[in-house]
């Protein structure tokens, strides 16, 4: 089967409005960043107890989605499953964009971003015992590989077959490394777990697949390109498996930490003030509702049902990321047995601050903008019978939903 790809025309009014709105939001984010750089990070919600905030949450969310998109592309380019070919290029492109977004998040989150080159000194001026510095290798290599991968896929080159497996394996490394940033920190009970790296990958696969399905469907639909229902139904079945694997991992992890006498952190996560993130977002939205929809004999067979499940799952996995950062960091440290009085014993708070939130919105918009422009200037979409002008209105809706979830964080 020979598929051909063509870009969208991008001349409709709606398309232009969408580009303009995204551009303005992205610009607002940039301005917010400049202001907070000049004023100091006191403009953000972070403080000395919850010292990582919205940007790191979004960062690990994006890294996960990126690794997941790559796995979808591997179905086409590694395992040669031709029926997934229509969305293969889109998946690679999304992988690259999301990774760029993640890097923007990490680097703007630094207190002294002008010194970020220190992260990439690979042992010379950086400390290779730090998972952060190790990830510097992973991230830089990953972006390089993704660019090569996308170029090869766009050129339909034979090299794709070589680059694809390397890129996918590297994506797994990237994700395990990111999990290790959290999993290796014994001080924070909710993060500390040998399963964290594996759990991170598994959540990445599930959320990445869901996002690729959702975005590709919306794009194909609005671009008036052919949509194969079978493809989405079979991807939906794959999503079921991935979510179940994730559930097994999370249950094992939490149960292990619930079992011994030192169980404060699991109790804090599941019954503390942030428990709505765990039960409401991670469990209900991330696992239960998508599984119910996907396994339902009727809903699981309709494209609409599958898409709703995907959307809810992506939001739920965002909750899972929040559930690492916010409860993980705001749990008070027990310096001495007993009840610590005053400010040193209370759990850390995290107010929503305008500058940080605008930056988060800005980064989401920046990615949306790059995606929409990519559709116009790169050959990502399969050719339609009749070339229609595209408008990507509801793609932004997906973004906005994710943002709404983000807004609920704080």
């Amino acid at each position: 089967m020979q598929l051909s790809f063509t870009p969208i025309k991008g001349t409709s009014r709606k398309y232009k409005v969408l580009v303009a709105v995204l551009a303005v939001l992205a610009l607002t984010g940039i301005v917010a960043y400049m202001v907070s750089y000049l004023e100091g990070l006191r403009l953000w919600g972070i403080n000395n107890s919850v010292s990582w905030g919205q940007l790191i949450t979004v960062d690990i969310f994006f890294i996960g989605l990126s690794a997941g998109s790559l796995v979808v592309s591997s179905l086409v380019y590694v395992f040669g499953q031709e029926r997934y070919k229509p969305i293969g290029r889109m998946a690679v492109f999304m992988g690259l964009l999301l990774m760029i977004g993640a890097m923007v998040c990490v680097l703007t989150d630094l207190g002294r971003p002008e010194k970020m080159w220190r992260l990439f000194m690979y042992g010379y001026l950086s400390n290779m015992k730090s998972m952060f510095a190790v990830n510097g290798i992973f991230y830089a290599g990953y972006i390089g590989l993704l660019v090569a991968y996308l170029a090869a896929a766009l050129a339909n080159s034979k090299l794709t077959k070589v680059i694809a497996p390397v890129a996918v394996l590297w994506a797994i490394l990237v994700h395990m490394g990111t999990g290790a940033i959290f999993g290796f920190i014994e001080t924070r009970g909710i993060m500390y777990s040998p399963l964290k790296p594996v759990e991170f990958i598994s959540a990445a696969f599930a959320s990445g697949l869901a996002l690729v399905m959702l975005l590709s469907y919306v794009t194909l639909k609005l671009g008036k390109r052919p949509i194969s229902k079978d493809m989405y139904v079979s991807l939906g079945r794959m999503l079921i498996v991935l979510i179940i694997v994730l559930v097994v991992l999370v249950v094992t992890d939490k149960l292990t930490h619930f079992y011994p006498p030192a169980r404060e952190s699991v109790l804090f996560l599941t019954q503390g003030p942030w428990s709505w993130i765990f039960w409401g977002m991670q469990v209900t939205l991330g696992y239960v509702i998508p599984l119910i929809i996907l396994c339902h004999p009727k809903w699981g067979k309709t494209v609409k049902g599958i898409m709703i499940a995907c959307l809810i799952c992506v939001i739920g996995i965002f909750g899972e990321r929040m559930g690492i950062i916010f409860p993980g960091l705001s749990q008070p440290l027990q310096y001495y047995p007993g009840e610590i009085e005053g400010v040193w014993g209370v759990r850390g708070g995290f107010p929503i601050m305008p500058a940080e939130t605008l930056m988060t919105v800005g980064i989401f918009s920046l990615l949306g903008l790059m995606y929409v422009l990519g559709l116009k200037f790169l050959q990502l979409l399969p050719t339609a019978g009749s070339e229609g002008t595209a408008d990507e209105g509801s793609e932004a809706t997906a973004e906005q939903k994710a943002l709404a979830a983000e807004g609920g964080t704080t």
Partner: protein
Amino acid sequence: MAKWGMIIDLDKCVGCQACSLACKSENNVPHGSPHEWKRHQDLYWHKVIAVTEGEYPTVNTQIIPMPCMHCEHPPCVNVCPAKATYQRGDGIVMQNFRRCIGCRYCIIACPYGSRNFNFKDQADEEYDRPDLPPDLDLSYVGHIGPWPYPRRTRGVVEKCTYCFHRIDQALEKGVDIGSPDGVVPACVEACPAEARFFGDLDDPESEVSRLLATRNSFKLREEMSTHPKTIYLPR
């Protein structure tokens, strides 16, 4: 080489917070506003916590002054990607503001909450001392001044240094460190109850070694295996 350590006698401590104040003025640590205090965005190199156990009438409140523990196996040094925090040969865990990229990973890894992020520029003029050399690079000849931190850099992490500038100065001049009329960190000097002791843990003759040998002692969060060099004598 010496191995500096601090001993805090909880039996003598009266909870007056003179140590916290002395630390703030010695190291030029900015005072925060009530607003920043509420948001947990102000800086404390030294804190005093009060831990309550039980309920009235069988209640017991323990006052515990907490500088940096200067761990033998410091998790903060492990996780710092930029080698900005490091352990000196004499065991002091140092922070290099010039190298720190402000990733705040060390705040997350420290089990004792000893690290603070600097959220804003110094506003108060009284703290602005451009006449003194700026950073803590010891190879810089002009370095030794009464205040090693004339001006703050925003966007980096700060922590207690056991007043390394006093120690280094004393070593240079050959003054005794840790004895009653010798040089000690500012918090030890300020303590009106004489509850704090500073000295060389490796030297069996020092006051701290003598105290450790004769009194029962404990460290905070020993289960974390960080082996703190700030050691407590129980009440």
